[in-house]
């Protein structure tokens, strides 16, 4: 069953839903990259909460004109308009007053959302009663999605993804360094508007699938996960899209397997699993890599200190150092150096003397990348040319004889 669900064999409708949700995940992952680069991630929170009053007003307007009130396109238009108004308020509050952006975001999201709730209670009290399942937009739903709605969502997600891919270069430039982009002749204001417009669209279509509270997760989590794997923005962009798409695809499949559970939380939790894997296992930035790096550094420090002590016939008291030296075969259990150990100790001491001479007399810029590191941990032969070392050795010899 799960396998069928993953391989899209659960019928036409389920397949379309899976496809739409996957596209939505890709679009959210890609759009989230720009928010993250601009340190704007939580703006999405304001956008998503600000959709609620528009959604309800759109419903009321459609009912007032004798319509059904549940027409998805109409609801989404209303949601988009009020989210845009909310976004405008955030930017006004941030630019025109001394409130910081986080306060502006919080104020807008709580006020708009509360107003939406007031309007919702108004609808519930109306005689038209059926209230269109507007509650569904809080947590989203894929189970009861109609064919037409799924088409609308899929089409919009596809369009947004295309825009994101086509305009990725100017958008990335603006997100990274707006003044540089301006100097290159890009129209920063227009590109900024495209970024926010795309985010708005993703939020609004995502709202009907995963709910307006959880769409924020899809705009943030894939990008943060991708951030662990690379320092390059185009790699993060691509990975973020892949992670978002995978969350949507696997999440939709899992919820097809368990149709009684809401799809939104499942998709978010899949994204979170991807995040945890990245957090732990990513090279360089991951927790595991950092821990290993720390251990190997610690081992090197202990070994170098121990070998220097051996070379100068000083006693070694630190049990960890003794243990490491013994395990590397440099000393015997009784603490006496092996042949191998003596040779290694001599090399370490020589390395240390060369470095200290270099630091005293000749320091250049060769070490710039490692200045914070203890020099004696680095093999000098890997950093200086043979000629330079010969020069140092000569000078050391003269010093010793004179």
């Amino acid at each position, binding site marked *: 069953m799960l396998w069928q669900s993953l391989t899209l064999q659960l019928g036409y409708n389920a397949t379309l839903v899976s496809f739409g949700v996957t596209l939505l995940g890709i679009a959210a992952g890609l759009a989230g990259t720009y928010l993250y680069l601009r340190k704007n991630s939580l703006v999405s929170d304001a956008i998503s909460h600000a959709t609620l009053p528009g959604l309800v007003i759109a419903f009321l307007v459609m009912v007032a004109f004798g319509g059904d009130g549940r027409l998805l396109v109409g609801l989404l238009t209303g949601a988009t308009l009020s989210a845009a108004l909310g976004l405008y308020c955030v930017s006004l509050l941030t630019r025109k007053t001394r*409130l910081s952006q986080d306060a502006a975001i919080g104020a807008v999201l709580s006020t708009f*959302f509360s107003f939406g709730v007031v309007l919702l209670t108004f609808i519930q009290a109306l005689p038209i009663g059926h209230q269109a399942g507007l509650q569904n937009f809080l947590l989203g739903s894929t189970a009861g999605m109609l064919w037409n709605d799924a088409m609308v969502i899929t089409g919009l997600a596809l369009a947004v993804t295309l825009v994101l891919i086509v305009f990725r270069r100017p958008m990335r430039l603006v997100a990274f360094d707006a003044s540089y982009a301006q100097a290159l002749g890009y129209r920063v204001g227009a590109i900024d508007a495209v970024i926010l417009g795309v985010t708005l669209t993703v939020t609004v279509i995502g709202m009907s699938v995963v709910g307006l509270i959880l769409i924020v997760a899809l705009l943030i989590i894939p990008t943060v996960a991708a951030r662990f794997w690379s320092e390059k923005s185009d790699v993060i962009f691509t990975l973020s899209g892949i992670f978002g798409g995978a969350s949507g695809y696997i999440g939709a499949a899992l919820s097809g397997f368990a149709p009684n559970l809401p799809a939104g939380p499942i998709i978010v939790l899949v994204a979170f699993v991807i995040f945890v894997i990245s957090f732990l296992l990513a090279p360089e930035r991951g927790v595991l890599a950092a821990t290993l790096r720390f251990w190997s550094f610690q081992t090197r420090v202990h070994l170098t200190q121990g070998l220097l002590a051996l070379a100068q016939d000083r006693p070694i008291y630190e049990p960890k150092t003794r243990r490491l030296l013994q395990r590397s075969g440099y000393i015997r259990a009784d603490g006496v150096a092996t042949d191998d150990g003596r040779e290694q100790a001599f090399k370490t001491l020589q390395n240390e003397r060369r470095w200290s001479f270099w630091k005293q007399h000749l320091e250049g810029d060769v070490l710039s990348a490692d200045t914070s590191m203890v020099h004696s941990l680095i093999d000098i032969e890997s950093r200086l040319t043979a000629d330079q070392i010969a020069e140092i050795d000569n000078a050391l010899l003269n010093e010793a004889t004179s």
Partner: protein
Amino acid sequence: MMGQEFFVLSFPPLVIGIFASIACALPGNFLILRKQALIGDALSHVVLPGIVVAFVITGAITTWPMMLGALSAAFLAIALIQAVQRIGRIEQGAAMGVVFTTMFALGVLLLEMTDTSKVHLDVEHALYGSLESLIWIDSYGWQSLLSIEDLSYMPVELWRMVGVCSVIVIFVVLFWRPLTLISFDEGFARTQGMRTNVMSTLLIGLSALAAIAAFDAVGSIIVIAMFICPPATARLMTNSLERQVWLSLVIASVSTVIGYYLAAYGPLVVGFEESLSAAGMIATVSGVFLALAALFGSHRKSNS
């Protein structure tokens, strides 16, 4: 409107609402200065999984396990945000976004998987609260305020809210100076030998307490609004922190009263029978105050 009916129907929600608003607005003053305004938002989202887990374990809607569950969830969330931020070197906003949305998703999923059909526990209730249902049945008017027996029939939420609010007021009064220091210049506070981490953890811990107590009584939308809107409004009206705090408390209380009456009696004025969500209306009114301050406040810009 001030007779017996007032004391039975309106007095408890008004008093509980005011204490809840004050308990949130007070720490909010320091949070917005420290650019941590969205902590309130994050906290109110993670309360849900805490409560659901407590319900799954105890199998009943009982107050203390739920408060405890919510508090544990809040501290877990804060610890996770710190871990993602520090170990993963991710900026605070994104770290918060990862943690609170995930925990909220977990809460929703758990709630859907648990049979809660017999009890009143759902996402909407958590969001909107049920301010209107807090009534004081055994009240006979003013004189009941002086009768211990009658007072004992007050909703328990009231005493809890009063207790939490007092703890927060005492904390702010006692630690006024260090709170001011860490809000304006944490680096300077540290050079003065202050343990700023302890202070900021205490501040966030108390905010969590306020959020949870208020959430229980009035729903989370009031919590988020009150953490931010009244302090932000006051900040646009004065440069003195002391005046800002007093103003924010006044604004929070006034919003509660206006919002409550608008929701309860506003629809009647236009000939509409049902009342609207009081929690939503109170939060909306606090937002309207902020909008007014942003347009006309005397200290809108940073240098004025």
